[in-house]
């Protein structure tokens, strides 16, 4: 009964979305207040209905209702509760329902909190948003219904793919979707602005917090996914330039560009049509990502069984949505003239360069991701484009970006003083050069590239600190005064400081872990030792340990720092190989001990029947935890910036803000 209610609610949601996408739009065109008034309540009703549908599916999973096909295929009574719940979105149908839920959630948020939006704009944003929802809901109901029943109901289910039974991956999809479905809002804003033919500072100001929110979630989602791949796949790597990873990374690049160009649009009334273009592209890439992941057209390590007919539907949705938006852009775009002029060397110039590099980088990732598909369609053979391509294209583009990222915040709007800016970065430059040389001479003389990467990270980090010091006039006014200024920094500036510093830390982590990773593969018998990255690993034993729905082969490593005596500071690592009962599948659980300077990482593999030993893989992964820390700081930056009340005020407020008028987020 509850399942049918969910199904019915979803059908109703489709109709509500269809109505919401048409009537208020007509109303906005004819200035018919009555029709326009439908938009906001409809968005909330649509949200409520999708919540009911989602709750119904969750209920079916939690209670293990095996009369529902989806539950049979993806759940099992012996699964821990967390994975019963995450099983809801751990499959195609359910994840699309989550997609729809988040889409409606953003629509509902606009309806509920967008009180200070211009009414016609608000109505149109909601209209466009629900047109997308109409497409997605129709897709779910027609091709991927999660509520399909099975008769007779089996006694138990097939359980969830064991690789997904992991706390990191339980929260990865919701975060990722909050990110890339969140870009639907900026898309809706862009299309609504094109329909209205009006993009002003107020528009850009409304768009920024939504972009920021989506960007923050996307950053968190991608990092969590990367973290999962790092500890769960047992390869010690954290990014493989796999199509599915690229699918989430491209929208991130576009969203990052959008975040920066929207600043120029708001503050300087410039780059307006570019901002609109980026907003369309960013969501287009999200849809493309959904298509790539859901259709299975591309070989990916992360590919899950998928159905090509669904791919056609999403492709159609993509073509209609993005094609329509671009047609509108071609028609209306040229009329969006900006007024803000600027010199190439200025803050706008720096942001423009950032945008240029990010978009070209996104384009090159897109090209590499889709290239195998083109070649296949043209029947020129089967090819794959691997990590070397992406690394040799992406990294050279990020180098100038990181360099300029350090300088641009020192430039003034409109016309900057390049020499003046670099002069203020004297100290940063000296520290960078010294740091780079030290890295090269002490750590690794073989890799000038790694030293350069570390130098770039230092450069950016010190520049961010210098910029902060300038803002609070450190050492130029009494310390107390600087402290007072520090406390009164606008939160949006803190956001930038955090995000940029976080990136610097991340770059250091990426460079170090790629350049100085130590790996060792060997067969070990009990009592055997191996030394990797300054730590000695002794395999004590390997035994079987039962888990809730699996049996684990658990190895025990005693790890001591080489040179250290006493057993006191020895630590123990327990890597596991789990065999899940229902699917007869094995997963690797690497044992990781993070330290400030690097992760100790051990994996236990198969038994070698001949010698009686076990294949083990041991890594020392330098500075890996810096990447996750960096990502966390970036996300924190987005959060702090979002809490800036300036983001929540509708029009560019010249006067003081009246506290009572600020709507709650």
């Amino acid at each position, binding site marked *: 009964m509850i399942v049918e209610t969910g199904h019915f609610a979803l059908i109703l949601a489709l109709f509500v979305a269809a109505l919401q996408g048409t009537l208020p739009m007509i109303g906005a065109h004819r200035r018919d207040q009555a029709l326009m008034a439908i938009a906001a309540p409809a968005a909330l009703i649509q949200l409520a209905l999708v919540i009911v549908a989602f709750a119904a599916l969750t209920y079916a999973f939690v209670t293990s209702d095996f009369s529902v096909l989806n539950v049979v295929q993806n759940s099992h009574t012996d699964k821990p509760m967390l994975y019963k719940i995450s099983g809801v979105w751990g499959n195609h149908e359910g994840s699309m329902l989550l997609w729809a839920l988040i889409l409606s959630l953003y629509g509902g948020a606009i309806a509920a909190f967008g009180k200070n939006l211009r009414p016609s704009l608000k109505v149109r944003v909601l209209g466009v948003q629900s047109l997308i929802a109409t497409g997605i809901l129709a897709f779910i109901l027609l091709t991927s219904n999660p509520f399909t029943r099975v008769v007779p109901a089996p006694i138990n289910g097939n359980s969830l793919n064991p690789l997904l039974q992991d706390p990191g991956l339980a929260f990865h999809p919701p975060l990722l979707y909050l990110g890339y479905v969140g870009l639907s809002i900026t898309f809706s804003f862009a299309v609504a602005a094109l329909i209205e033919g009006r993009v002003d500072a107020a528009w850009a100001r409304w768009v920024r917090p939504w972009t920021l929110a989506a960007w923050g979630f996307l950053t968190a989602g991608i990092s969590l996914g990367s973290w999962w791949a790092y500890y769960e796949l*047992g390869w010690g790597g954290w990014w493989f330039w796999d199509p599915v990873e690229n699918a989430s990374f491209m929208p991130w690049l576009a969203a990052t560009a959008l975040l920066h160009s929207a600043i120029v649009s708001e503050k300087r009334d410039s780059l307006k049509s570019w901002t609109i273009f980026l907003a369309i592209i960013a969501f287009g890439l999200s849809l493309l990502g959904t298509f790539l992941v859901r259709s299975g057209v591309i*070989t990916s390590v992360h590919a899950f*069984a998928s159905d090509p007919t669904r791919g056609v539907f999403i492709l159609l949705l993509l073509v209609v949505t993005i094609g329509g938006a671009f047609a509108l852009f071609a028609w209306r775009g040229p009329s969006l003239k900006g007024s803000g002029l600027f010199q190439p060397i200025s803050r706008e110039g720096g942001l423009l360069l950032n945008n*240029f590099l990010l978009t070209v980088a996104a384009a090159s990732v897109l090209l590499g991701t889709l290239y195998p598909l083109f070649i296949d369609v043209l029947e020129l053979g089967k090819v794959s484009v691997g990590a070397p391509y992406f690394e*040799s294209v992406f990294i050279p583009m990020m180098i100038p970006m990181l360099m300029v990222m350090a300088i641009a915040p020192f430039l003034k709007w409109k016309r900057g003083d390049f020499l003046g800016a670099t002069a203020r970065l004297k100290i940063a430059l000296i520290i960078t050069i010294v740091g780079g040389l030290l890295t090269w001479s002490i750590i690794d003389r073989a890799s000038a590239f790694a030293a350069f990467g570390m130098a770039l990270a230092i450069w950016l980090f010190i520049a961010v600190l210098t910029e902060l010091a300038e803002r609070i006039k450190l050492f130029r006014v009494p310390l107390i005064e600087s402290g007072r200024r520090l406390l009164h920094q606008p939160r949006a500036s803190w956001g930038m400081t955090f995000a940029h510093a976080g990136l610097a830390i991340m770059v250091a982590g990426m460079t170090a872990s790629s350049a100085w990773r130590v790996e060792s*593969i060997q*067969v070990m018998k009990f009592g055997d030792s191996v030394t990797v990255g300054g730590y000695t690993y002794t395999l004590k034993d390997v035994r079987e340990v039962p888990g809730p729905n699996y049996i684990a082969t658990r190895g025990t490593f005693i790890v001591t720092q080489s040179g250290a005596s006493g057993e006191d500071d020895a630590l123990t690592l327990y890597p596991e190989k789990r065999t899940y009962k229902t699917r007869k599948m094995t997963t690797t659980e690497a044992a990781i001990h993070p330290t400030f300077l690097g992760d100790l990482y051990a994996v236990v593999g198969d038994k070698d029947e*001949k010698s009686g030993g076990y294949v083990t893989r041991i890594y020392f992964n330098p500075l890996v935890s810096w990447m996750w820390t960096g990502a966390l700081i970036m996300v924190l930056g987005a959060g702090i910036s979002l809490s800036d009340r300036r983001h929540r005020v509708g029009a560019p407020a010249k006067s003081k803000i009246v506290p009572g008028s600020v709507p709650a987020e």
Partner: protein
Amino acid sequence: MALKRKHRRLSFVALGLLALGAAAALILTAFEDNIVFFHSPTEIQEKFAANELKPAQRLRIGGLVVEGSVTKTGDGATTRFKVTDLTKSIVVEYRGILPDLFREGQGIVAEGHYNNNVFTAREVLAKHDENYMPPEVAAALKKSGQWKPAGKEK
């Protein structure tokens, strides 16, 4: 003012084009060096016999892991197995821990070099999902006329 504006825009466009050209050059050279072609076991043997492929080339192969062919060699950390498109099969060697979903009878894709009738894999890709068949493997099986639409044996 108007002239100045046009002039400035022109310099932006010129700079942009220059940078775009550099990016294009970068992408093209990267493409040239880093594209890896996929071959079925039958094609590998034919093309190496005809000298169309060289041992130095990085290749991808794919097919089904032959039942009963998986053995450990050397110090025990190297796995040796056969991959087949059900017409021909080739020997693959891989040092390290194979992916969790690597199993006999399972479709896999491997990347590496082919030399002296042995394919030395740097990477072995098996999928996250037991019912998933890599498209390349499906294509290789179709080409050899051995493709049976995936049944649900599991």
